[in-house]
């Protein structure tokens, strides 16, 4: 894991001091709310429906057990005893008092954490594949590159007042688990003909009100050029991105308006001027960062553990959990354990302080003290010995994080929606809860197979509905909540944006509508087809026909 050195410590401490001073000036009336807003946003503090919301960065989704316990402490001390994991590998606390925010940030700094650049028109927390460093199909650990980007983008003097927020995602595997094609910049690691790893550079993807799939502007970028190339992209965007209309200010609109070819030309022209300069990454600097992400001291472990096998035969729940929540690890004898924060009928992504502490204990006992946060609002224990799986499972069952539903119909992503968010048209969390309750039968869920439902409470698409196999978008029709349903979105390598099935449905019919879509799939599917495969083969028509058939 990345550990701060003296420079990082000093920097974060100074940042807390700076923010404490800004809060003081705001409370004393020296700063207007207008002037304070961008400053608090750059420290992760939003003003929400009921209170301030503090968004904490979990860079590339990696946490130590010690950091996790600090999050539990903050939940208890400054919030109402729980936190909310988001699709951006962040944690949000929804009930923070402005006066307390500097203290909460000071506590975070003690464990090398912060809320810097989790909002505002700057380069945001860089996200990565949550199985980074442990996935079988990985070329290189993307966290090395995320950390290099994180440092470069931290209080970047030129790019802190961009036209709009800016999100970068990195995947170290050819199988994209970081949704790189729907970010402002996506970096996908691949090899050139000589076998050297480098990056495909994708620009101008995004969701929100105008969803767009990013365009590849460079098929292969050598690693040492990463920062100079990023700086060139950022400079073109900072100078020419639109600032007249916030709905047109993301880089995707610039790319769309001038075209990917012209974007490439401008970026390359700028890059020619700065490549090979001070931003060049020498191998020893890369190695210095990479050392932080060296694998933990794995022990030789049996690949076949008798106790684990026995339980698999005897306990159906454990067997189901192994099937859906446990994935192979690159180290023989180890497994990746995914924790579901989507128990039946619960708000997706919520965790109480007690649950956080328990996860930290499990991580210490069974996962080298390491925890990951996923963009699907779940957690991961990345290094569990196969022989320890029964013990870990029992521990997770106790705290309610062992629901065997990963990637299934009840593993729903939902944004905060009208329960918390000032911009919402409709509730999102209660819809997720009702769907999850309706599909509670696990045998049925496993029969339905992979099906990703994603819900947003408004067009901003924080819940990624555009890339849900089934997407649900809250809309307002004359003051009542309606939901527009899209089909066929997908965030993987074969990315696609969902298409609207038909007229929006009223709130009390959403669950029935999902039931109908699932029934259509079950009727139409051929052997081995997932929901997405069937949809791609048959299209919208059969789904639509059944959904809107007169009762």
């Amino acid at each position, binding site marked *: 894991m990345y550990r701060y*050195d003296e*420079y*990082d410590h*000093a*920097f974060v401490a*100074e*940042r807390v001091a*700076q923010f404490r*001073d*800004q809060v003081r*000036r705001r409370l004393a009336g*020296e700063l207007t709310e207008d*002037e304070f807003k*961008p*400053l608090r946003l750059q420290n992760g503090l939003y003003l929400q429906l009921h209170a301030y919301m503090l968004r904490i960065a979990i860079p590339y989704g990696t946490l130590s057990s010690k950091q996790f316990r600090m999050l539990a402490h903050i939940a208890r001390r400054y919030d109402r005893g729980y936190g909310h994991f988001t699709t951006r590998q962040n944690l949000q606390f929804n009930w923070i008092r402005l006066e307390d925010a500097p203290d909460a940030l000071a506590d975070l700094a003690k464990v090398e954490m912060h809320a810097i650049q989790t909002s505002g*028109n700057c380069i945001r927390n860089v996200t990565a594949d949550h199985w980074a460093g442990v996935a079988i199909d990985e070329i290189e650990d993307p966290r090395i590159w995320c950390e290099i980007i994180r*440092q*470069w983008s*931290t*209080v*970047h*003097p*030129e*790019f*802190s*007042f*961009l036209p709009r927020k800016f999100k970068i995602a990195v995947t170290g595997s050819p199988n994209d688990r970081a949704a790189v094609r729907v970010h402002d910049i996506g970096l996908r690691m691949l090899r050139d003909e000589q076998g050297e790893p480098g990056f495909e550079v994708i620009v101008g993807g995004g969701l929100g009100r105008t969803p767009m799939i990013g365009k590849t502007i460079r098929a292969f970028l050598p690693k040492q050029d990463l920062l100079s190339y990023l700086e060139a992209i950022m*400079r073109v965007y*900072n*100078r020419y991105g639109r*600032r007249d209309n916030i709905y047109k200010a993301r880089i995707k609109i610039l790319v769309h308006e001038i075209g990917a070819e012209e974007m490439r030309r401008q970026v390359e022209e700028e890059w020619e*001027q700065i490549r090979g*300069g*001070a*931003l060049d990454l*020498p191998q*020893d*600097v890369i190695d*210095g960062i990479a050392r932080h992400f060296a694998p933990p001291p794995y022990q030789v472990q049996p690949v076949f553990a008798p106790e684990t096998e026995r339980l698999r035969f005897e306990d159906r729940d454990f067997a189901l959990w192994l099937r859906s929540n446990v994935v192979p690890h690159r180290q023989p004898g180890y497994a990746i354990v995914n924790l579901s924060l989507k128990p039946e009928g619960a708000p997706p992504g919520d965790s109480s302080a007690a649950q956080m502490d328990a996860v930290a204990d499990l991580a210490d006992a069974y996962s080298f003290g390491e925890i990951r946060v996923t963009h699907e609002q779940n957690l991961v224990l990345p290094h569990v010995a196969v022989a320890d799986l029964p013990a870990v499972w029992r521990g997770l069952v106790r705290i309610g994080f062992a629901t065997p539903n990963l990637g299934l119909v009840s593993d729903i992503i939902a944004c905060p929606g009208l329960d918390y968010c000032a911009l919402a048209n409709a509730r999102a969390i209660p819809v997720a809860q009702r769907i999850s309750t309706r599909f509670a039968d696990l045998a049925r869920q496993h029969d339905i197979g992979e099906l990703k439902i994603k819900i947003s409470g408004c067009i901003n698409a924080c819940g990624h509905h555009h890339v849900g196999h089934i997407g649900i978008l809250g809309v307002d029709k004359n003051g009542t909540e309606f939901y527009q349903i899209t089909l066929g979105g997908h965030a993987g390598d074969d990315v696609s944006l969902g298409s609207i099935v038909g007229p929006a449905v009223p709130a009390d019919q959403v669950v029935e509508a999902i039931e109908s879509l699932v029934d259509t799939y079950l009727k139409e599917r051929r052997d081995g087809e997932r929901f997405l495969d069937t949809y791609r083969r048959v299209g919208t028509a059969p789904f639509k026909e059944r959904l809107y058939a007169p009762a």
Partner: protein
Amino acid sequence: MPLLRNGALSDDEWQRVADDAASLPAGAAVIVSFTRFRAERETLLARNAPMGVLLKNIDPVEELGPDGARFALIALEFPKFSDGRAYSQARLLRERYGFTGELRATGQVLPDQLHHMRRCGFDAFELAKGEPLEAWRRALHTFTAVYQPTGDGRIPVSALRRRLFAAAAD
């Protein structure tokens, strides 16, 4: 308007002249708009007094480029503090076109941007509102470590680390 230079409030010897002002005050240090400069380039460069130019943040620095060196001052605008285009202009002027004169920030200039502005090459600041000088002094020393190489010559953390590694290896 108070002017901050070299960490202290300072008198401003520069006058801004409107585009429609017929003649420039003889011998005085004046700042003209980029539009006027474009229109009257030859006459203005032939003037026998310090020249300054004010660029809007959409004016192309590339076009000023080589002429930059003939100005004693270039002023860049922040129409709102949240509009960050002038940061890029500043770095280009300093780092690409080698401008060494006074680089002045005008418009909505607040203490919380001072760190960014200085790192991008600004060395004079027209202060937008009456923040106590103390707030500006503190802002000068916000961060001791920086992560990016820019034209300000500060050594970024990555380079400091390399030195540590090298020292440890010795």
